[in-house]
């Protein structure tokens, strides 16, 4: 299978701290969200992704399994893995309210005197502590 | 495995082959010439063990003088067994030096089989080359050997079985040192030094004095040397006189001896006999050729066997 035929180009950032398989999942989800992948498009074959990135084939398999579990893709035996659902619709419309709330928060933060780095630091620490609580 | 061993020794085999081919050409050309001169001069009548016509003394000397340079040149051929031995064993040592034995040992072959094949081929080639060299030199030296026997160093070192033993010995030093050090150049250096030292030492101090006790012969001055066993190797020889050195000088003066060459002594031999001066010779008879060959070959082969055994043990138990 030609790699050029599938529309998502994977990359692995070793330094990001995110496990490789999760990076692949995120990249597929982002491609779906931004409309680069449509329903029926084929994801890169395991061998193609492996040859391109020099990653463990199990990583790709695990990523595709997770995407399949989320209902976004489906594997067809002997043919490959294909997109079954996009996320394009969701991101734009249903989160408009959230986006406005975020804009309001940013404005409030700037008015409170925080510079960009402080805003980012505040955002990150809050996000991390929330993630810990979620897991528990 | 056999293809691999040959392919790995290809370069060394070609070098060795080229050297031996050049050697063969040189020896064949000169050997035919020598045989021709020998034949034309009817020198067969002068060979050891036959009754010698009077002219033989001179013609033998002339024959020897004519080819003395060539014979001296053959002294360099003592290096040939050393060279063949080095070329035979070097490829194995190079394998250890470059670590490629780890490549071979991780294919589907046992270490023992690998070693057995490599050693068999390497030493087989060494033996074959040594044998060929010996046969060639024996043929070349035919005329000389018939006149002076085979026991002297010019003949003994290149004939019979000792060239094979020398070659195997040289190969085994390179193998043993190279296996332990895993370096080819030091192994070759040690082989050269120890080969020369042992060869020179045995030839100079052990072979003619100790393999078997030399024979003594004494006879009156001027009389022909008694026939008996033909002298293959002449050691110490000269005149004996019982008395103090001053008495000897007075005796020589009284007989009118001015020079001590055989011709001058011949003239005054009657006088010397009167004073009980005797001629003596300490020598090894040429009939002992094969006995000495056996002893010398055994020494070198025994050493070679010990070195090869040590190498095999090292490869099987210590080498990684």
């Amino acid at each position, binding site marked *: 299978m030609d790699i050029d035929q599938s529309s998502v180009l994977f990359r*692995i950032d*070793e*330094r990001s*701290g995110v*496990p*490789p398989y999760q990076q692949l999942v995120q990249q597929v989800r982002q491609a779906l969200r931004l409309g680069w992948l449509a329903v029926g498009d084929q994801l890169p074959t*395991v*061998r193609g992704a*492996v*040859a*391109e*990135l*020099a*990653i*463990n*084939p*199990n*990583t790709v398999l695990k990523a595709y399994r997770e995407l399949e579990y989320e209902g976004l893709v489906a594997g067809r035996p002997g043919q490959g893995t294909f997109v079954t659902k996009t996320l394009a619709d969701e991101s734009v419309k249903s989160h408009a309210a959230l986006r406005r709330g975020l804009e309001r928060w940013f404005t409030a933060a700037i008015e409170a005197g925080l510079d960009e780095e402080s805003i980012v630091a505040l955002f990150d*620490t809050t996000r*991390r*502590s929330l993630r*810990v*609580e979620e*897991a*528990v | *495995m056999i*293809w*691999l061993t040959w*392919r*790995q020794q290809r*370069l060394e085999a070609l070098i060795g082959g080229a050297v031996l081919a050049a050697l063969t050409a040189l020896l064949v050309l000169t050997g035919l010439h020598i045989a021709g001169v020998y034949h034309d001069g009817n020198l067969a009548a002068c060979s050891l063990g036959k009754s010698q016509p009077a002219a033989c003394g001179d013609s033998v000397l002339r024959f020897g003088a004519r080819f003395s340079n060539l014979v001296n040149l053959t002294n360099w051929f003592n290096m040939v067994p050393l060279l063949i031995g080095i070329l035979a064993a070097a490829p194995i040592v190079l394998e250890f030096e*470059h*670590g*490629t034995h*780890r*490549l*071979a*040992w*991780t*294919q*589907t*072959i*046992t*270490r023992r089989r690998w070693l057995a094949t490599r050693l068999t081929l390497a030493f087989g080639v060494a033996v074959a080359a040594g044998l060929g060299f010996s046969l060639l030199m024996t043929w070349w030296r035919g005329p000389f050997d018939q006149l002076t026997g085979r026991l002297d160093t010019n003949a003994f070192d290149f004939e019979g079985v000792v060239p094979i033993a020398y070659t195997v010995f040289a190969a085994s030093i390179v193998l043993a040192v190279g296996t332990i050090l895993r370096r080819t150049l030091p192994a070759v250096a040690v082989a050269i030094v120890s080969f020369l030292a042992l060869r020179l030492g045995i030839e100079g101090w052990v072979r003619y004095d100790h393999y078997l006790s030399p024979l003594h012969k004494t006879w009156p001055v001027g009389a022909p040397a008694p026939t008996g066993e033909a002298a293959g190797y002449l050691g110490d020889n000269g005149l004996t006189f019982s008395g103090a050195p001053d008495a000897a000088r007075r005796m020589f003066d009284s007989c009118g001896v001015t020079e001590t060459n055989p011709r001058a002594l011949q003239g005054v031999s009657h006088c010397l006999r009167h004073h009980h001066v005797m001629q003596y010779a300490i020598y090894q008879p040429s009939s002992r050729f094969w006995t000495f060959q056996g002893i010398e070959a055994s020494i070198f082969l025994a050493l070679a066997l010990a070195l090869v055994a040590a190498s095999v043990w090292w490869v099987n138990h210590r080498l*990684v």
Partner: protein
Amino acid sequence: MSIALETSELAKRYGSTWALRDCSVSIPQGRVAALVGPNGAGKTTLLQLAIGISKPTAGQVEVFGWSPHEQPLLVLARVGFVAQDHPLYRGFTVSEMLRVGRKLNPRWDQQLARERLDRLGIPVEQRVGKLSGGQQAQVALVLALAKRPELLLLDEPVASLDPLARREFLQSLMDAVAEGGLTVLLSSHILADLERVCDYLVILSASRVQLAGDIDRIVADHKLLTGPREGAERIAARHTVIHERHSNRQSTLLVAGDRLAAQAACSAEPAWLAETPSLEEIVLAYLGQPVVSSAPAQPRLEVAS
């Protein structure tokens, strides 16, 4: 699940130095395992014991249930090995190297070898000595793979290669893994490539196994706790601390163990943060504090998969 390589208290001594001690690992089939540790930690020794080039001083090693020393031909037929600096016969052409493999291995796939070499663009009539370092490494890998092994052992295969050659080598290796039926154990003292390529980890340091297990489980079972200096001893007492760093105001603890306990402890202490460490941080933490006691040591953390 079957085990490809199993060692039990494996040890090797050279003269008076122990190159490897009390090594007990169990690498499942199908994994790509990394053998990590500083130079001289015993990585090469372990690989040589696994292929049978070297004989154990104590303990046992088994490959698919066979002993490399007692059943060498059974093991050698199934295991490929690429030694450090990938030794090849420099004077041979590439096709002559293939011939060596063909003559010395019963399970030799000449077609696979030719296909791989063609795909890599390596000319088969070229002398091996004239190839670039990366190409030589690829040839050594092809030789090992054409034997159709079930286990592939590689000793620092990319250490001497430039970044591009390193990437290409790992691409070839991963492609072979993707074909199926291959377990890989590769040693490295370079951590960078490991997380993308490997899914199992063995950390060797001071000739002993410090940690062994599936990478996912290892990462999940370690936490990086950051907090104020005063509380450090209190938090440390409640966890298995692998590595700790202190400044006069702040402390960082890398702890192993139950992830729920770590997080519970942190939610009780709002000033403390629990994060997931990177694999590199975990490996460095274990390498920084090797277990060197004279008593037979258990690996600090055996994470079963």
